[in-house]
């Protein structure tokens, strides 16, 4: 072993102890049985997986996927526009913009989402204003809906899209745009044939950084979505915390993990195949 590789040991230890081992525990639990009072009984069974594949849970998984896809797509469009504007701004302003993007991280996610909930909530500033202007509305629909969930997700995950794209845009040579203009390309043609291909790597890593956590997100839908908007993340949380059905929760977790690993794998393989072309 080369001396430099020793430096990697802490990382491997950390990964092994705090990621791999807990994951293995989850996998093991997913094959166990729920005790009468919510404990774990070590009777091996596949029943949890049988339940996890029931239509109800698959439906929840499907709506989570839809939400994650919408979140990722919105973040990608907004992120491209934002990072484009940021990277072409005068250089003295760029630091300010980058800090502005990172600024929300200084406040805890739950507090940020709660603030949003208070803002749109019963007797909050939004509803008070609408009342004042005599605009009729349904206070419950207004304070808890799918659009709010999407809004919360997009604002939360946008920085993960903007930062890699900003880095790519900063390195992007804008004379390529002029070259394309000169050769006769219109704005859309330039966007799709010159700009986006050169941002591909950053865009793809941004997409993964947004898609993966937004598929498992449970705080935002819980606070902004209300009882009607159950997502996969909430489902898993409920199994562990409320229903005390750890084996089923574990099975659901393993299922989602496999899905995400599969998506990531296909994603990178598709990428590799394209690069060979």
């Amino acid at each position: 072993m080369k001396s430099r590789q020793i430096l990697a040991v802490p990382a491997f230890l950390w990964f092994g102890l705090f990621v791999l081992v807990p994951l293995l525990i989850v996998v093991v639990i997913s094959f166990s049985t729920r005790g009468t009072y919510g404990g774990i009984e070590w009777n091996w069974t596949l029943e949890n997986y049988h339940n996890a594949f029931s239509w109800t849970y698959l439906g929840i998984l499907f709506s989570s996927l839809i939400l994650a896809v919408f979140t990722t797509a919105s973040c990608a469009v907004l992120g491209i526009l934002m990072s484009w504007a940021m990277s072409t701004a005068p250089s003295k302003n760029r630091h300010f913009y980058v800090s502005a993007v990172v600024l929300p991280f200084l406040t805890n996610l739950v507090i940020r989402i709660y603030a949003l909930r208070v803002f749109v909530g019963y007797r909050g500033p939004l509803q008070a204003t609408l009342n004042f202007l005599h605009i009729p509305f349904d206070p419950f629909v207004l304070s808890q809906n799918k659009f709010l969930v999407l809004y919360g997700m997009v604002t939360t995950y946008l920085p993960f899209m903007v930062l890699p794209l900003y880095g790519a845009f900063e390195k992007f040579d804008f004379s390529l745009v002029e070259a394309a203009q000169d050769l006769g390309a219109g704005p859309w043609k330039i966007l799709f044939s010159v700009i986006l291909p050169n941002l591909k790597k950053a865009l793809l890593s941004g997409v993964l950084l947004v898609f993966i956590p937004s598929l498992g997100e449970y705080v935002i839908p819980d606070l902004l979505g209300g009882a009607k908007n159950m997502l996969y993340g909430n489902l898993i949380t409920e199994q562990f915390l409320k229903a005390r059905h750890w084996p089923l929760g574990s099975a659901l977790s393993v299922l989602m993990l496999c899905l995400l690993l599969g998506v990531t794998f296909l994603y990178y393989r598709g990428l590799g195949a394209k690069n060979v072309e």
Partner: protein
Amino acid sequence: MLEILNIGKSFSRQTALKSVNLSIAEGEFFSLLGPSGCGKTTLMRIIAGLESATEGRILLNGERIEHLQAAERPFNMVFQKYSLFPHMTVGQNIAYGLNLKKLSKDEIEGRVAEILSLFEMSDFRQRMPETLSGGQAQRVAIARALVNRPKVLLLDEPLSALDQKLREHMQKELRTLQQKLGLTFIYVTHDQEEALIMSDRIGIMNKGELVQVSSPREIYENPETIFASQFLGATSLLQGELVEISQDLATVRLSDGSLVRGKFNIPSDQIRLGMSLDTYVRKAMVFNRLESQVFGIRDK
């Protein structure tokens, strides 16, 4: 063929170009020469349509084109840093403009192959730009512009990133190509030697103004301004006293008593013997005798 009439460009505070007038003939190799910041690149970008002029007109064969977008003008440009599309092969780079023109596949294929063989780059068709050397990338950049058969090819300091030897080689190659195909080139450079070697005519620019437009020989031998003479070659400034004038030659006595003789550019009504003068001396391009090396005498 191409006429530039009173083209001016001013930003909120400064003026980049002051009413430039220029006429370029078909098949001409025209160089815009000047120090950095003189406005030569701005002028070229206005011709290309990448920037808009704040005043003036551009005529191509008598038709106004200044309102056209870069994409609509029958000109193509070779950029200083080549600006090849890094995600496309050499062949795709060259075909980019032709694809946009919606030509048939056979036509595109034929023209790409033709231009590649012209530049002796046929073996590089599938290569990615990052694997090319500077000279190869340069050829591809020129091929990508020329394949569209532009009425005018605009070149923005295309050789400045190459080393001396390669630069000299490419200078010859470009000039030969231009003459062989009868193309119209507008060439921006800050390298006097390059401009003098390659061009049919040179326009010298300084501080947003076109100060002189002449053939290389004319501009070298009879620079109309001190700026032009200084810019066109290593000059030494000598101070002395005017002692004799005969025809078009002036003799100046320097402080150590030695005499130099050469052309002068002072209006005859301002000239008088005994006046104190700035004398510019420089190594001559064609002549080698000391007498011929003096020129450009200015009233102090």
